[in-house]
């Protein structure tokens, strides 16, 4: 089932080389797969056989970094560790999976990865200002720019964020970065039930304390509500106090206030849903992570139905729900591959009734068909196809990993 990863790797060192390699590949009719460090290679449907990998690993140069402008232009092959260190030196950060050190910036953007503080700072699409991209025929082009506000021309950079490399390769991006907040704190509250934890999350959302994350955690331990606050000492102390008080009123069973290292540890844990819900320390058991997105008001319904389905099937389950964003992640693990697969399918089906449910991680047996991973093509599928046709008419980058087999 596992398709071979080709030996041929096209690894340009700059945009010109990228253009040249792509032109060469195109003239030979090669099918390509875009890759950075390959840490997210198991996301999406199983790729069709491709002829070569187009690697961005050598495209990691920092083009411009103006701390005073809060903008950074950098090659997409830069490792996340290097990126975060670079910004930290100037008291700044990129609040996208800021705790994660594996993988490249390009991979983070191409998969539109979810980070723990997205609620406070925005999703990957919200922080991308401009990009230089390479299309399959070797056309290298910039779109938008490196200033924080810009409506000149089509927003190609955002179009490529989350496109899994199927429209073209991101070579370089300009990002909006932020000053590192003076304090980053958190709180963990325990609840008797998931419903209580969700209700507490709702109470916090009704308040005006601007938490940077509100996560409902379930499965591995008693249901918990995790809250995060960033800002000045006065801001985080006051907001946490009020938010915790609101959340406590929903029959809270326990409270931990987390500062400094403890807060950082919690954020590290929640930053990458896949790592969080399929912990490696529990051995290499096969696992599935489902991501649900939709209206916040529908999240609770899906979550409780999904947890019940897992319980019925005797499959171990962990969940991390972000009600304020209308997002939910469910991790399923178990040695019985059939039960695991059946539960995963049930959870996906439940999620797709009202909302979208995709597989973030799954054994290959579940990743064979794009529709299994992504669900049926959405209502605007024809527009997506048209867009792919415009940028990659030969479908060089459409390796079948993405929605509708793109």
């Amino acid at each position, binding site marked *: 089932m596992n398709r071979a990863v080709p030996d041929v790797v096209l690894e340009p060192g700059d945009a010109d080389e990228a253009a040249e390699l792509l032109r060469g590949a195109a003239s030979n009719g090669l099918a390509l797969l875009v890759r950075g460090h390959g840490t997210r290679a198991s996301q999406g449907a199983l790729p069709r056989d491709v002829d070569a990998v187009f690697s961005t690993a050598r495209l990691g140069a920092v083009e411009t970094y103006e701390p005073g402008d*809060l903008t950074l232009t950098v090659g997409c092959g830069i490792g996340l560790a290097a990126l975060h260190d670079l910004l930290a030196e100037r008291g700044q950060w990129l609040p996208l999976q800021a705790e994660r050190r594996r993988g490249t910036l390009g991979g983070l953007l191409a998969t539109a990865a979810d980070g723990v503080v997205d609620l406070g700072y925005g999703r990957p699409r919200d922080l991308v200002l401009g990009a230089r991209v390479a299309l399959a025929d070797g056309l290298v082009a910039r779109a938008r*720019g490196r200033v924080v506000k810009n409506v000149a021309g089509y927003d190609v950079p955002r179009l490529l964020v989350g496109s899994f490399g199927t429209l073209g390769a991101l070579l370089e991006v300009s990002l909006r970065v932020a000053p590192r907040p003076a304090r980053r704190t958190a709180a963990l509250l325990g609840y008797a039930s998931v419903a209580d934890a969700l209700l507490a999350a709702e109470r916090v959302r009704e308040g005006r304390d601007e938490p940077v994350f509100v996560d409902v955690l379930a499965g591995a331990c008693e249901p918990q509500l995790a809250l995060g606050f960033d800002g000045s000492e006065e801001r985080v102390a006051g907001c946490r106090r009020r938010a915790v008080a609101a959340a406590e009123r929903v029959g809270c069973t326990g409270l931990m206030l987390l500062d400094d290292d403890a807060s950082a540890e919690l954020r590290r844990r929640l930053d990458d849903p896949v790592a969080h819900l399929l912990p490696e320390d529990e051995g290499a058991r096969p696992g599935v992570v489902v991501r649900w*997105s939709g209206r916040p008001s529908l999240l609770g319904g899906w979550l409780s139905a999904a947890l019940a389905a897992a319980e019925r099937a005797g499959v171990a389950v962990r969940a991390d729900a972000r009600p304020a964003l209308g997002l939910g992640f469910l991790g399923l693990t178990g040695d019985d591959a059939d039960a695991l697969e059946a539960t995963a399918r049930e959870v996906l089906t439940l999620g797709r009734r009202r909302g979208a449910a995709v597989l973030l991680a799954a054994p290959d047996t579940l990743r064979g068909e794009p529709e299994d991973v992504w*669900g049926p093509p959405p209502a605007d599928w024809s527009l997506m196809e048209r867009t792919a046709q415009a940028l990659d008419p030969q479908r060089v980058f459409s390796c079948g990993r993405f929605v509708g087999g793109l």
Partner: protein
Amino acid sequence: MTATPDALLASLARRLGQDRVLTDPSELVVYEADGSTMHDVTPRAVVFPRGTEEVAAVVQACLANGVAFVARGAGTGLSGGAMALDGGIVVALNRMDRILGIDVEDRRATVEPGVRNLAVSEAAARHGLFYAPDPSSQAVCTLGGNVAHNSGGPHTLKHGVTVNHVLGVQLVTPWGEVVRVGGPDRPGYDLLALLTGAEGTLGIVTEVEVALRRIPEGVRTLLASFPDVDRASAAVSAIIGAGIVPAALEMMDDVVVGALEAAFGFAFPSDAGALLLVESDGPEPGLDREAADVAEVCRAHGALDVRSADTAAERAEVWTARKKAFGALGRVARHYYTQDGVIPRTRLPDMLRHVREVAARHGLRVANVFHAGDGNLHPCILFDEDDAATRAKVLEAGAEILRHCVELGGSLTGEHGVGVEKREAMALLFSESDLELMRRLSDAWDPAGLCNPGKVLPMGAGCVELSPRARQAAL
């Protein structure tokens, strides 16, 4: 342009009724320009569809007859984006102005494209919610136009622009199909990002779903006056440098201050060469401290005076003045030409100096009112004589200012859009390859080339189909 009933107009009149199809040249003249009067083209007709189906019918009729079409809301655009070029018709959506629903629990509103920006916040206010993007024309401009231009506003510094708040749209495609384009969270390409800011060249939005936010608990509004724009610019950099991200950070120069005094009777310090309007919002805890920090930074950078607007009424007054600043310039000049260049924030002093030099060289006056926190400038070139020679001079000065924005690593437009106005200037900012990429998208989405043609991408042929006055100016 005569009102001879050609096949298209006849079919539109049949479909919509004669009273919703304007063809009288003396009426069409009103639709020759939007908020910018530098360019004007009289449309072939103006139609007023009601609802998605009728918009689709209009688009299909246009396709069948090979006639171009362009959507128009309140006509407040500043780049000529709503002008019907190529003998096209205007599809007026201002009567499609129903708020279809406000979902309090999920914090979103669904509206027709003709709903005014401010009307959304007004309707949401009783639920403690608001729609964050707040262009200065928010009392007038419509959501459809906001989506087309990815409109910003003073508070986008903290709260983001339109694209950060659109959750879904109903689109009539350039080939006349009706498609619901899903939110950024449904699996697939981020088509909303492509459509938002595409200036109506990739279809007509007939319904918009937008995110609403909780109204911030507290607001602190400071008005600091400085002897000159250089010192005010330095204060802007210092505020951001101190790690403060205000909700809004706006600058106005002395020309604007004079106009505002005339328009609203404000008493600003008489020796103020620049005003900085700084607003912080968010939870009460720490908010006073943030405002105090801002005030301190301003004083340290030579502020003559720092005042705070403490009551809601005072804040409303300050913001009314700021948002009507463009219009108030009508008190000091008969005409103005607004630029919308963006530069990296740290280059503000350099850029403002350049603007002054350009104006002096051309013997023109310039007023500056802009989003300093974003580095989004709005130099307004003022002029009184509306003759060809003056217009040519004004356009040239504008072009010089834009060139310098690009040289400093900035952009031609932060929120007003390229439209027809900056179409040819796109070649300053983008290489042929860059434009080729955009053309591929445009060609794929608008194969007939009838969906708001002549906007965004350069034609390479100089001024096409502009008004006689603009044509003269270009000669």
